[in-house]
């Protein structure tokens, strides 16, 4: 009986042991780096110099008109090959998959849109594969990329809130919206609320999910307008929400009376400022993210500003760790400088 | 001169020569019956006449001019209208919208004029003596027979000079069929050339002026009605003499299935017994409540009151799976929609009745399933190139045998068959009767629902007539005649 049992069990035990032996666990407690890792000297030459930018939602107009256009322009002026890759929709796992596949093709430099902290692993994979890597837009904690360029989202919230306080003279109801579930937005919300907290006469009536859609933002805004006819101001934290809020306010016949602050400086946003419907735009200098991001990669690879006899051996990089490109504050006062 | 003349028409499909040099000539004011078994090529011929298919060879002439029918629109333009066997109506639209599907009257600014549409429909329905149907009624609220009448009205709305009818009476009651026949006679007087396809021989002999026969895609000839009789026609269609049924009773006194005061949707207070070896016929008009009774026994429909016993034991309801486990099998009336998996093989169709029989050490075995399918394909003489054939490619008779094979594999005690020979050609019909009689001789009980009275009189031991959901009478076969049954079914 025992013998037969053993007979039955043995192949399975064998397979189990085989599996256990063949199994490799991921490294435990990956080192949390506070410093940027140094750039490792590349083995290859620079003959086929190529810089690849991987983002998500590549078809988003703002990404196309600002980030990608500046990056492509940079490639043209430097006369090097540049490519833009990534999924058409907002899909972080798909962006990660794309980066993984790009690593296999060994580009000269990699410029990554920091969409979510979850991309830290793949950034480290690129760095370990010896590819100079720069992140823009939002910084990624626990990742070893050489540099980061972006905007302080807390600042976006703060700037909007301070302008709003002035516009509504320190009292009244306000509402705000953005894409819920995105970490940079949440940071922005925090900055916004931290300012408003100081004004007891301002009542925040709601936080809404615009789902990155103008239609949704318009729908939410008109609901807010009917629920709170006395609302004083509405703020938006994602590009599409600005025109949406403006549309609802215009349709309610309250253009100019209800104060609107929002982000981005796309043509439709600028037009609304000109019409006096939107009162302030906190716009990012997105062109600078990718232009200088690419330039940093180029300078790293070419050793443009060598700071030691051998930067790689010295364990240093010759580019800034962190760049805050700051914000554009667009109001009816300076709007004419932004429209043609 | 012939209104329409087909000369040496041939049409091939992959692997099949559907039509082989077929001739047909129909004159104005003539009802021309087209006969043949299923698969003889009648449908292909109709599809050629209506422009759905193009012949490989041969010519079509209308009024003596050779012509080509490009598509259904072209057929309408040339005055050809068809009443399909399978309904071609949109369920959610009104009668009027269906009848004038492609020819809505429009008002001066180009929109549909509904007032005019309903007026036209009303006039047409009056002409056809279809008083029960209102132009604004939605199709889905009509009975099957009424739908068929709307289908006919739709064809006639185009004032065709050539009218084709494909099994128009299959779902009509006697009264409705009579209206149709008088209508067809009126059209004949008006000069319409009518091609009439039917399996019902008595209709053909009542209506037709001439009879043409197709067999295996080949033209067999055309005869004036006076020179034809039923026996000769069957022989021409089938190519052999069909021996009449030998009615040997295998009925025993041992009750197998008993219904006691069963009431449900469409039937009330039904009681009867089915003995081992008995073939019990359920006669009645379409819609009399026979199918709901069968469904209730099989567990496919709930019943409110009463009890069902099998071998003296209470039969559980709820789902067919329970009835099947207890030894009940059901061949439903609509093969294509309820009985078969058309896109699946004969093997798969037969195996599903008793999936346990396909198991080998607890796992499904394709080899075993194939063996079972092979067995029934042979014993039921299913004509097919192989058991891997999809059932959609089989003729009606062979399809019905596949359904029977599925249930024989469950070794049932009671077999319920609902219109088992509907739309099946003569040869296969007799084979199905033989199967049913063989099963009875094995001690099975058979409950047979049929609207074909000669069929019921031919093989049943007892006939129960259902009228308006109730048992109207019970006749031992010795006492039953068509007249008595009709009287009980429609008093």
């Amino acid at each position: 009986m025992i013998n037969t049992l053993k007979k039955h069990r043995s192949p399975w035990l064998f397979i189990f042991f085989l599996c256990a032996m063949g199994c490799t666990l991921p490294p435990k407690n990956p080192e949390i780096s506070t410093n940027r890792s140094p750039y490792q000297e590349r083995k290859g030459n620079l003959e086929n110099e190529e810089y690849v930018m991987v983002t998500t939602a590549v078809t988003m107009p703002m990404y196309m008109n600002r980030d990608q256009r500046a990056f492509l322009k940079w490639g043209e002026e430097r006369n090097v090959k540049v490519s833009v890759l990534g999924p058409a929709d907002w899909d972080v796992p798909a962006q990660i998959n794309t980066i993984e596949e790009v690593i296999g093709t060994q580009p000269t430099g990699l410029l990554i849109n920091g969409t979510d902290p979850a991309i830290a692993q793949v950034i480290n994979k690129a760095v370990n594969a010896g590819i100079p890597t720069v992140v823009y837009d939002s910084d990624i904690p626990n990742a070893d990329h050489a540099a980061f360029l972006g905007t302080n989202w807390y600042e976006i919230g703060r700037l909007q809130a301070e302008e709003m306080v002035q516009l509504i003279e320190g009292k009244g109801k306000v509402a705000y919206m953005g894409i819920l579930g995105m970490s940079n937005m949440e940071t922005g919300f925090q900055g916004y609320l931290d300012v408003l907290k100081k004004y007891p006469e301002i009542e925040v009536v709601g936080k809404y999910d615009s789902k990155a859609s103008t239609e949704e933002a318009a729908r939410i805004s008109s609901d807010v307008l009917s629920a709170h006819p006395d609302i004083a101001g509405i703020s938006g934290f994602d590009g599409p929400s600005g025109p949406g809020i403006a549309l609802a306010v215009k349709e309610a016949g309250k253009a100019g009376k209800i104060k609107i602050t929002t982000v981005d400086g796309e043509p439709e946003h600028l037009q609304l400022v000109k019409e006096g419907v939107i009162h302030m735009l906190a716009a990012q200098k997105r062109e600078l993210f990718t232009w200088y991001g690419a330039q940093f990669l180029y300078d790293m690879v070419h050793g443009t500003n060598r700071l030691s006899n051998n930067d790689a051996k010295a364990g240093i990089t010759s580019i800034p760790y962190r760049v805050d490109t700051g914000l554009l504050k667009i109001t009816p006062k300076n709007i004419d400088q932004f429209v043609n | 001169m012939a209104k329409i003349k087909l000369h040496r028409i041939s049409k091939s499909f992959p692997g099949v020569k559907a039509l082989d040099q077929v001739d047909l000539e129909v004159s104005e004011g003539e009802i021309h019956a087209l006969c043949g078994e299923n698969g003889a090529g009648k449908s292909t011929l109709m599809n050629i006449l209506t422009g759905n298919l193009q012949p490989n060879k041969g010519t079509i002439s209308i009024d003596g001019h050779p012509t080509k029918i490009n598509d259904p629109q072209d057929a309408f333009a040339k005055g050809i209208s068809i009443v399909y066997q399978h309904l071609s109506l949109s369920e959610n639209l009104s009668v009027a919208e269906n009848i004038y599907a492609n020819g809505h009257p429009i008002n001066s600014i180009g929109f549909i004029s509904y007032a005019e549409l309903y007026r036209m429909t009303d006039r047409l329905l009056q002409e056809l003596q279809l008083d029960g149907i209102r132009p604004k009624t939605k199709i889905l609220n009509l009975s099957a027979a009424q739908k068929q009448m709307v289908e006919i009205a739709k064809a006639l709305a185009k004032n065709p000079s050539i009218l084709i009818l494909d099994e128009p009476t299959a779902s009509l009651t006697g009264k409705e069929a009579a209206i149709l026949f008088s209508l067809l006679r009126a059209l004949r007087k008006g000069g319409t050339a009518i091609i009439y396809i039917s399996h019902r021989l008595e209709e053909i002999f009542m209506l037709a002026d001439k009879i043409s026969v197709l067999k295996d895609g080949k033209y067999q000839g055309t005869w004036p009605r006076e020179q034809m009789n039923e026996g000769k026609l069957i022989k021409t269609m089938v190519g052999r003499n069909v021996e009449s049924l030998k009615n040997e009773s295998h009925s025993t006194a041992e009750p197998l299935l008993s219904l006691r005061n069963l009431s449900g949707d469409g039937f009330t207070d039904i009681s009867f017994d089915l003995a081992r070896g008995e073939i019990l016929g359920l006669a009645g008009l379409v819609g009399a409540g026979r199918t709901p009774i069968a469904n209730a026994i099989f567990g496919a429909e709930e019943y409110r009151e009463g009890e069902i016993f099998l071998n003296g034991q209470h039969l559980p309801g709820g789902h067919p799976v329970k009835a099947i486990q207890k030894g009940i099998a059901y061949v439903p009336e609509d093969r294509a929609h309820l009985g078969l998996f058309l896109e699946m093989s004969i093997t798969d169709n037969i195996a599903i009745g008793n999936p346990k029989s396909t198991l080998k050490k607890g796992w499904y075995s394709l080899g075993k399933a194939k063996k079972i399918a092979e067995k029934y394909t042979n014993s039921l003489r299913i004509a097919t190139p192989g058991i891997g054939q999809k059932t959609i490619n089989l003729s009606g008779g062979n399809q019905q045998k596949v359904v029977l094979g599925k249930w024989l594999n469950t070794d049932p005690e009671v077999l319920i068959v609902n219109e088992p020979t509907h739309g099946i050609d003569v040869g296969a019909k007799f084979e199905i009767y033989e199967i049913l009689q063989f099963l009875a001789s094995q001690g099975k009980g058979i409950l047979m629902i049929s609207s074909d009275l000669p069929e019921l009189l031919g093989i049943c031991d007892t006939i129960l007539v259902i009228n308006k959901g109730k048992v109207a009478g019970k006749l031992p076969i010795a006492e039953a005649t068509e007249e008595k049954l009709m009287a009980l079914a429609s008093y």
Partner: protein
Amino acid sequence: MKQILQERIYLLIILLVTVCLVAGITFPTNFLTFSNFSQILLNVSVDTIVAVGMMLLLISGSFDLSVGSVVALTACLTAYLMQVLHIPIPMAIVLGLCAALVLGWINGYLVAYKGINAMIQTLAMMGIARGAALMLSGSGSQNLPYWFNTIGQSKLLGIQMPIWYMLLTVGIFTFLFKKTIFFRRYYYIGGNEKAADLSGIQVKKMKMLGFVISAGLAGVAGILISSRLGAALPTFGRGLELRVITAVILGGASLTGGYGKIPGALLGTLFMGIIANIMVISRVSGYWQEIILGIILILTLGLDKLLLKRYAQTA
């Protein structure tokens, strides 16, 4: 020959091999490498596991639009249980999977027993599950526990675990669909629901279980993707449902039901994965990816029809 043409699987295999050969010749250093292929397989592993469930549903003549949201909800719920409520990892995984099963059960019950249209029901569930995921995780949970991450980040014989899970899922379901009456019933239900009911198949129950199984697989995919990334994002699985339905149809399923084989799900996702990979290697911009995938879908199905027709004519 006809057999080969009738099963889209074979056509797809021929296409796959052709595409790989052409790409291998065009990109000799980058494409036909072990690391690139294991990367492709890794990238399609989550989609494939969901696609197996979707294949089951399409065979039975149904489909589920909420799978992408179920992936997100399972991931976010499991992360929430581990990080916020400090429930032991195995327990959290079991609870996460249970949530997926419950969502599948609700879908299945309402579609099968209450007759709600599958499109409407699963569309509603898609919104509900996505909303719940957002509520649970806000901007997403990072730095999941190490032992949780080992599920998706370990390697066996040098190959990443998600690939093994994918192959295991495809293997098990291929076997089950070949060898058990239970799963074979889905072909009958997809072929003719009414006839299946009258043949003794409890169609309602089976349909409900189909949704449960499919949602369960989506739950597994959710656990896997979050452990692979070490993070749970509420945006997981956005657009996954349509991608998976596309893959499954490429792999031989039909929206009318009754057709399809489980390995077809893998071939479908693999085909899409390889096309996406070639586009990355050849640096085709992301704008083109969807357009090219759409064209490929139409071409493949068109070729399929054309070959069948050509065969029918020559026979």
